[in-house]
């Protein structure tokens, strides 16, 4: 049996695990509808939460199924072999002195015949410019240019880079990321289709040195890449990740480039492209490696900005939801984002609080155990499938046991607080993360 066939088999096994999870959900449905739990509020809450859990089972099942279909479709897809246009790689950098050289070095090792690297130093206060400028010049098929500008944020830096780019396509990334050598070659081939505006790549955590960063390693594989793969099946990826996205310059110019009125400029730009009717693909072999926060407070800072930024982007494009028939794909995308960004975290926190009260006051801990078991089984199935398909480290799978009980709940509490702050329109600023320099 060859490796790809074995991967299919394991993928199928993961889907069977999903079916098991479904049966566990039914079991939970029967087990938790206990008539002896007092109070109409508790009973009705249980029914709501069980319905929501059923929705989550469908969500996991659908994502796994469509990402599996996308995986199969990759082998049938035919791309033009000689489509290798000039690509401009834009590297916005603000105080990335610790990682910028590693990032540029990884770019110089790309397996691609013609590309230019444009580093945009966004008014860094550290030695980013000095460290980047030593690479300026031609290195084989690649040329490096460094632009220095007054600090204005990532979106303005990327717009500066787009204006300076000579290529018909640009690869936008973060200054703290590194790319796999095949990234450009794998991503650009999608853009031979003139209907495609952009290709989202796969982001992987490079520092899996402690519990928190290992859990994020699993989260990126299972929580983010699996969702993108499923969305990619419909050509409707809703967030092109900051560390890796390849764009058609004409499409970017058509929507006015990056806006700077949200804290999730990548999400906002993707939504603008989808609203214009462009396709956005996902390429799992276009890989960017990024540093994940290793401390809890840094992680909360990052997720706070993501949550509020995504909510700002949803609010900005909410008009589309009022006319779902005019833009059905866009309306579905936004509805999905509301589900993932607001509804699920809120329900998860509510469920845990309710179950803790029920367990401590009425001695019924079973609902809490079953809620955890159900979601953990789903996570394990998804983790197993994603690790196999992405040829990731198998050691990430057992982290799924801790993922739901500790990691997801902590993040969801922060998301709920961030959502409240966003609804109250409290002031926020960019939370620049401290870089360790593992790239």
């Amino acid at each position, binding site marked *: 049996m060859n490796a790809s066939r074995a991967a299919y088999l394991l993928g199928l096994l993961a889907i069977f695990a999903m079916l098991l999870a479904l049966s566990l959900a039914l079991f939970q449905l029967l087990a938790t509808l206990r008539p002896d739990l007092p109070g109409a509020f508790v009973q009705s809450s249980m029914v709501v939460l069980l319905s929501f859990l059923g929705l989550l089972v469908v969500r996991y099942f659908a994502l796994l199924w469509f990402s599996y279909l996308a995986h199969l479709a990759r082998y049938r897809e035919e791309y033009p072999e000689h489509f290798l246009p000039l690509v401009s790689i834009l590297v916005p950098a603000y105080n990335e002195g610790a990682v910028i050289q590693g990032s540029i070095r990884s770019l110089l090792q790309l397996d691609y015949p013609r590309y230019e690297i444009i580093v945009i130093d966004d008014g860094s206060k550290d030695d980013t410019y000095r460290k980047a400028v030593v690479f300026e010049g031609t290195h084989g098929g690649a040329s490096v240019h460094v632009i220095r500008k007054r600090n204005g944020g990532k979106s303005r830096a990327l717009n500066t880079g787009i204006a300076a780019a000579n290529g018909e396509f640009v690869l936008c990334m973060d200054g703290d990321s590194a790319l796999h050598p095949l990234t450009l070659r794998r991503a650009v081939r999608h853009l031979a289709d003139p209907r495609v505006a952009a290709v989202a790549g796969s982001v992987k955590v490079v520092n899996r040195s402690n519990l928190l960063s290992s859990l994020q390693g699993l989260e990126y594989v299972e929580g983010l890449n699996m969702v993108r793969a499923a969305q990619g099946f419909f050509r409707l990826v809703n967030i092109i990740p900051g560390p890796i996205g390849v764009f058609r310059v004409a499409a970017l110019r058509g929507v006015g480039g990056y806006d700077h009125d949200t804290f999730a400029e990548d999400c906002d730009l993707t939504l603008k492209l989808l609203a214009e009717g462009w396709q956005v693909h996902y390429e799992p072999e276009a890989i960017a490696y990024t540093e994940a926060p290793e401390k809890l*407070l840094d992680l909360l800072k990052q997720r706070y900005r993501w949550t509020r930024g995504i909510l700002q982007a949803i609010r900005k494009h909410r008009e589309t939801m009022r006319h779902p028939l005019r833009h059905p794909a866009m309306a579905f995308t936004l509805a999905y984002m509301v589900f993932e960004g607001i509804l699920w975290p809120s329900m998860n926190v509510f469920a845990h609080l309710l179950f803790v009260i029920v367990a401590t006051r009425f001695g019924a801990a079973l609902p809490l155990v079953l809620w955890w078991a159900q979601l953990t089984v789903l996570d394990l199935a998804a983790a197993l499938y994603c690790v196999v398909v992405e040829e990731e480290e198998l050691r990430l799978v057992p982290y799924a046991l801790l993922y739901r009980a*500790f990691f997801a709940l*902590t993040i969801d509490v922060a998301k709920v607080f961030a959502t409240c702050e966003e609804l109250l329109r409290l002031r926020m600023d960019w939370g620049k993360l401290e870089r360790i320099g593992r790239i």
Partner: protein
Amino acid sequence: MDLVPYLSAVILVATIATILLAIGSYAAFKLRDKRKPRAQQGPPPVFFHRYRPEEPDPGLAAPAPPEAR
């Protein structure tokens, strides 16, 4: 041996601890965020300070007018 009561206890304790940790760490994050601008301000730039000599520096004293010849 019935494992469910033990599992229930472990998950209940873990959940309560995680909720408390999550709320506490969020509060800590906000506190750190609020403190940060003050820490970044640092001492004000010296060129905005008005120079007020307390005592005349003998080294910088104006030279005596040349004696009349």
